Every structure is written in C-alpha cells, then in structure tokens.
C-alpha cells in the first residue's frame, strides 16, 4: 500500500532488483540528478574486508569421507549443512553454511524479519574444542503482504558460519558437525519448521581444497554478505520518531539514491515498511528513517545493511555493514 510506494514494484524479490515507479521515485530521480551535478566526488572503492579468509584452491577435493544429511521430509524447506571444503586442519577454519532451499514462492526470514515473522535460527552443536563464529546473513529480499513487509529469502540461501578446529585436533579423524535449524516459512500462510542436521568432515594436516561443486554456491552467497568498509564512520540521531543516520565516507557520495535500501539488522527499531529518504551530502550520505512505533527504549545505536542495487564501485559489491552510534545524547 503506502509503504509499497517506497520501493515501487519489486519484480521477483529474491535478491531484489528495484524498480521504482512512483511519484516519489520521480522526485528522488530529480534529486539524484541535482545532487549528481552539484556534487562531484571521486569514488574510492572500499576495500573488501570480510572476515572470511579461507583457502581457495583449484584442486578438486576428495569426494569421500564426508556425508551430509538433509531434511528430505520437509516439503517447503530443504535444509542441509554445506562446507566449502571436505576437511579442516588443526587450528584451522572451515566455512560452513546452512543451505535452505524453499518451494516456489515460499520464503524464510532474515535476522530482522520486518513487520511480522520470525528470524531463521541456526544453532551449531560441535565437538569439544570446536567453535562456531557468528551467523553471517546474505542481504535479504523484500516481500510485501498487504501493507506490511518482510525481509527474507526465497528460492535458496546459505547462512554462513566460520567453524574453527582446536589446535590439538587429531589428523585423520572424522569430526561430526550438527546444527539445529528452525524457521518460519511463509507464502500466503506461515508454517514453522525445524531440522536437526548432521555431517562429517575430516581433519587433515594440509590445508584442504575447496570442493569444486560447492564453489559456485559459496561464491554466490558470499558475494551477498555485507562488507565492512574501512574508514566508514556513522552516527545516528533520534528525534520525534525520526532516526537520521549520517554516514561519513567519500565513497558514498556517488551513490544513486534511487538504488539504496537500508535494512536495520535488529527488529523493532526502524519501521520496516516506512519510506526511507537518502541524501548525498558533503560528508557522504544522510539517511532518514522512521522509528518503529513499538520501540520502548532509547536508541543507542543502529546496526544495519546499506544495499545499493547499482553496486558500490565497480567490484560488484552491493551491501555494506553500517553501525551508527547515537550522537545526540
């Protein structure tokens, strides 16, 4: 409804492509044109500094030695554990993921589900000494139900976690990985689901190769992880129901504001369906968001993902992490 006008019609929203067709859009286009002509600043491509730092080689991993159970009995969501390599070294890391494949039209939720819904949850259960890092979420799509919006994933997603082996992991041994995954899957209706997933990887002395058939899958979703941009400073102010983010970085100044969406990472801070206003400024970017009607406490910071459909710079990077600290109190 009104909220839908913010983004206009979204085609297939999975990995959204924005087409804005409203009057608001026309106004914004004009602003973009004006700002583009007023402000001319060079774009410095932010350095990719994801925490993923795994060995990528061309050799093909041995196929044997690892097996992953999938939840075949789930009709709407097929869940499975995927790992980038079939093995891990003592003290080494392994990029693992929960792959969720949804039936046509059904979606599961991002960490902030939006106006309704429940975040997908992943809980790793690992042998002693093994640790799992934070869940890494590819940026979501936007789905409309009536005038409310949801953030989530259609078709497929991989939610990543970096697993770390202990220094004293015994080479040649098999390691059992397991994860409990719960989700709410929705189309016109919502159905909760869960899966207990298991798998094995080997411990090897030498750095393992990436499993070639997994490479495309991992690359596809790794590219959708928000990137931390060095030097990006962000502050937030909160006034009369309006949250304003000030993002300071020269690289933001060339943004086409039509292409931008801000996804707040936490539920209930920003009104998900409300219009968002973006303005290129002399310091970078100013973002005006509507505060959630349901927030009880003062905002101390706003974490989120700034998505640019046109990409940031020429390297295909579309989403950057934003942590804006409250500056007006």
């Amino acid at each position, binding site marked *: 409804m*009104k*909220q839908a*006008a*913010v983004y206009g019609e979204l085609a297939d929203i999975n990995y959204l492509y924005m087409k804005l067709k409203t*009057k*608001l859009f026309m*106004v*914004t286009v*004009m*602003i973009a044109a*004006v*700002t583009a*002509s*007023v402000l001319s600043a060079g774009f410095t491509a932010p350095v990719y500094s994801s925490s993923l730092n795994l060995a990528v080689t061309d050799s093909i991993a041995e196929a044997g030695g690892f097996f992953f159970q999938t939840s075949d009995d789930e009709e709407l969501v097929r869940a499975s554990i995927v790992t980038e390599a079939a093995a891990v070294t003592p003290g080494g890391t392994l990029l693992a993921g929960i792959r969720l494949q949804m039936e046509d039209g059904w979606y599961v939720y991002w960490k902030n589900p939006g*106006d*309704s*819904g*429940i975040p997908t949850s992943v809980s790793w259960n690992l042998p002693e000494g093994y640790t799992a890092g934070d869940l890494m979420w590819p940026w979501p799509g936007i789905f409309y*139900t*009536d*005038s*409310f919006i*949801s953030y989530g994933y259609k078709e497929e997603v991989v939610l990543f976690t970096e697993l770390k082996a202990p220094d004293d992991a015994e080479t040649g041994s098999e390691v059992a990985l397991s994860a409990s995954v719960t989700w*709410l899957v*929705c189309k*016109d*209706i*919502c*159905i*909760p689901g869960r899966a207990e997933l298991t798998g094995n990887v080997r411990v090897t002395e030498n750095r393992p190769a990436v499993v070639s058939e997994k490479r495309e899958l991992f690359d596809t979703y790794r590219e959708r992880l928000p990137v931390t941009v060095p030097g990006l400073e962000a502050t937030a102010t909160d006034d009369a129901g309006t949250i304003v983010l000030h993002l300071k970085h020269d690289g933001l100044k060339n943004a086409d504001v039509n292409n931008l969406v801000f996804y707040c990472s936490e*539920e*209930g801070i920003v*009104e998900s*369906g*409300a*219009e968002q*206003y973006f*303005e290129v400024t002399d310091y970078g970017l100013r973002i*005006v968001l*509507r505060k*959630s*009607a*349901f*927030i*009880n406490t003062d905002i101390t910071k706003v974490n989120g993902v700034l998505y640019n459909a046109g990409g940031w710079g020429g390297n295909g990077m579309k989403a950057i992490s934003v942590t804006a600290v409250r500056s007006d109190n």
Partner: protein
Amino acid sequence: MKKLLSLFTFLFAAVMLVNAAGLNTDPVIGEPAPAFTLTDQYGNEHNLSDFAGKTVMLEWLNHDCPFVVKYYRAGEMQRLQQKYTAKDVVWLSIISSAPGKQGYLEPEEIVKVNEEKNVHATAVLIDADGTVGRAYGARTTPHMYVIDEAGILRYNGAIDDKPTANAADLEGARVYATEALDAVLAGNEVEVKTTRPYGCSVKY
C-alpha cells in the same frame, strides 16, 4: 549554483511532504482508541463506545496461524479470556482476514469453533474488509491492545515476550498484554506500553 540549491531545497521539501502523507495510522498510547462498530458471530453489532466504563482487551485472531494455535491448543488464551471476563473485562477477538484468506470464518463457523475450543471471549468480531485492523495498525495474529474505562489506548503490541510458535514457550513467558490489563484494572501506569507484535501477518 544557487538555483540548483534552491531547487534541491524545494525537492527535499516535496519529499518530506510525501513522507508525512505516507505515515501509518498506528494509534497512539494515551489517546482515545480508534472508534469502531463491528458485527459478532451472532450478527450483533458492537461499538467500542458501548463499553465505556469497562476495560477492553482487543485480540487479533486467526485460528490457522501457528502463533495463535500456540495459545489456543494449550487452552491458555481461553484461560486468560475466562480469568479476565470474570473481572468484568470486555475481551473482543477480531478477525480481519479477508474472505478466502487464511483465518476468515463465516459467523456460523465462528460459533462452531468457539464451542470446539471452549472460547471465553466476550465476542468474536468480523472485520472482513480490514477497516478496523488497519485503523489499529494490527500487524500480526495475535496482536493485542488494552483500552481503559475512558476509552484510552493503554497497550499496543505482542501478547508476550517469547516470539515463537512453540507451546513450550508459554511457560515462563512475560505476558505483556495481561500485565498491561492488570495495571489498568489496578489503576496503575502500564510499565511496558508498546512491544513489537509477533506472529503471522494479518491476512487482509
């Protein structure tokens, strides 16, 4: 340059106006709750003003939603309805599902479901065109509102603090909705006045 800047200012103002026009109609805590007239499962009309002098709980309802099932299958919603209607609270369950969508029930189906589930709501109201749901900004099922004797909205939000569809989470949950109701009945200030509602989206 100056021209460009003033054009920019104008456009900025235009955008802000569009934004202002696009605001939701979330009702405001401490102000009169939106008035409504709806028909119940027996064809009786209920106007919010009919209940002046009584405390009112509004419960957005969709019996096929897992988050609603969580409360009804365990008998917990019915228990709360019984407990508070016994304290002269008016408990109105509102179905805003559009005909053909999940949760929509014909009046006679509501009567049947109420018997099967031993529902103790004062009335189940049919809001098939979603007018009242939208006036209240009802997002989910359940979504709860507490209105005091003077018709002032005192709580808007989730039923409790455990946003799951798992009945095991009923135990130990902080039930914001009845906590607000207790405070209003006792003449106290509601501690938590708004929370983010959780559940299925309302099937308008």
